[in-house]
């Protein structure tokens, strides 16, 4: 079976960009009326020609989300284990070249942080770390997961790419979700923004969701770092990637995150900033193409924007997040990965969700599935 890297070779970036730019109103209207949009329909939905149809798209996205997920938003919190990183991603606060305080939580400290989140009501947790495989080792992870297991029904990971066997071991230990952002699907740009470290290997990263799927991860999370390049083309490849995964790893659910570049240490500025309207267009197009995908919104976004996106297709939100290791229980002083824009507490966010006419759900998974 060809990996996604092989499969995606038949779609040239420039050709897709041209296809999107040339989409006409008639293409958009066809896409809007399709029950099962094709990739060509998707290209029309993210095109400039679709912009006048944004409200219509948003309503379709709302309707589909309501049908497939109901009026429900699931909540989770990230737990940053370590900001030690060997990579030099030019946009990231953890960049190995940045002189910042580095910290790796001991398993005991991780459990303390997690317990704080448990008390806040969270039952779904996402473990995050920079790429430091000599520090964030398999035995370290196993220890952390074992300590967290009794309090959390769902444990996902957003770590560095691993081999299938390593993922299998994590699934056996109780990890049900893998999040791995490609950052950009443009191979040339990828090389520029990831100049050093393990992460500079585009193919290895692009095939990571394949390995997660092969290892039996129940959820596979994709994302493009919005602002690095043309969001329309990135969106196309995200949709293509999701479609590929759903066909090949049909037991896994695909989730999509919408990380939009925010200021981070190192003074990186997004070369292709993505407006709110364009983000809505991308979200709506992805929902129309992928009715069953979980759509995740983090606290990178401002409160007003997050609240406004709730009815538009988002199904999972983080709340009260800290992106510095140890940040929940103390002033760690360690460098944060990115600036939080929504500082509201989980309870306040849950209240807003309820006010919007949605149920805030803290537990929608059970560890018993995996044990």
């Amino acid at each position, binding site marked *: 079976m060809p990996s996604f890297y092989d499969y995606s070779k038949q779609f040239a970036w420039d050709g897709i960009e041209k296809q999107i730019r040339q989409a006409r109103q008639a293409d958009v209207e066809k896409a809007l009326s399709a029950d099962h949009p094709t990739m060509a329909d998707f290209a029309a939905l993210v095109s400039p020609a679709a912009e006048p149809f944004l409200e219509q798209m948003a309503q379709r996205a709302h309707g589909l989300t309501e049908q497939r997920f109901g009026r429900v938003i699931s909540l989770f919190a990230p737990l940053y284990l370590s900001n030690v990183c060997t990579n030099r991603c030019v946009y990231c606060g953890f960049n190995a070249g940045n002189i910042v305080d580095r910290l790796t939580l001991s398993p005991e400290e991780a459990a303390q942080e997690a317990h704080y989140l448990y008390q806040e009501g969270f039952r779904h947790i996402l473990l995050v770390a920079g790429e430091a495989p000599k520090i964030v080792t398999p035995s370290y992870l196993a220890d952390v997961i074992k300590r967290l297991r009794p309090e959390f029904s769902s444990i996902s990971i957003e770590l560095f790419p691993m081999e299938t066997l390593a993922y299998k071991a994590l699934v056996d230990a109780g990890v049900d979700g893998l999040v791995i952002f490609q950052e950009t699907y443009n191979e040339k740009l990828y090389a520029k923004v990831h100049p050093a470290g393990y992460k500079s290997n585009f193919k290895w990263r692009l095939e990571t969701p394949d390995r997660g799927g092969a290892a039996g991860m129940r959820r596979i999370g994709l994302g493009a770092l919005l602002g690095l390049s043309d969001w329309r083309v990135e969106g196309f490849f995200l949709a293509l990637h999701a479609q590929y995964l759903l066909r090949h790893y049909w037991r896994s659910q695909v989730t999509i995150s919408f990380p939009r570049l925010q200021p981070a240490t190192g003074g990186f500025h997004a070369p292709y900033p993505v407006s709110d309207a364009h983000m809505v267009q991308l979200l709506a197009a992805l929902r129309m193409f992928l009715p069953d995908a979980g759509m995740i919104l983090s606290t990178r976004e401002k409160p007003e924007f997050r609240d406004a996106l709730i009815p538009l297709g988002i199904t999972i939100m983080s709340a009260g997040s800290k992106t510095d290791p140890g940040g929940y229980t103390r002033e760690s002083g360690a460098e944060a990965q990115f600036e939080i824009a929504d500082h509201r507490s989980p309870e306040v966010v849950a209240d807003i969700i309820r006010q919007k006419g949605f149920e805030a759900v*803290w537990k929608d998974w*059970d560890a*018993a*599935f995996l044990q």
Partner: protein
Amino acid sequence: MNDQLTIADRSFSSRLLLGTGKFSSSGLMSKALSASGTGVVTVALRRVDVDNPTDNLLQAIDTDRYLLLPNTSGATNASEAVRLARLGRAAGCGNWVKLEVHPDPNHLLPDPIETLKAAEILVKEGFIVLPYIMADPVLAKRLEEAGTATVMPLGSPIGSKQGLRTRDLLEIIIETAGCPVIVDAGLGAPSHAADAMEMGADGVLVNTAIAVAHDPEAMAIAFKKGVEAGREAFLAGIAQPGKNAEASSPLTGFLGA
């Protein structure tokens, strides 16, 4: 009214079963349950969190009034479903279980092989098993032989609100069943529920159509009426279109009156 739905050792005056997913709040859900007149309410065990008072779905369900029917939604194979069912029973959720095994998290279509395996195990362990299945008449008989209390074939893909797209197969299941047949999944309107009841189904299970309605409570009442109308029509001996009322006798007319 004496016409009751009997499943295992319990009888219910309503033939409408309700799901509890997708509601915008537990308050609205409670109102919808009450308005529907249902006697059986299914809850995903994966949503149950007995440690969290602010997110305890079970608190919103009056178990004096409704039979709690825990379901194994999320299980992808027999062993996961069995494990979850056992945990639910151990946590005090009773020994009834709506068996759902769907390895595909997107369309939530049931796995016939794993469902049968799990049913065989759970029945032996004393569970009252209500399996959610494809509209597969042979599988329905196999499950019945395994000792399940009902079969619950889908009318159309779950959440799709398309009504009885599996009509021809449902008719065979109903015709051949030795246990109650509850049509589960895909019923988008009270007319779909009425349709299933007119066909002779013993009951229907509805979730999405009520949960995401603009007014869930009013929609619950509408479904209640749809189920009742369909059942009464079935009992009254509804004329089957094309099967009874022939206007003339084109093949035998030559015989003369």
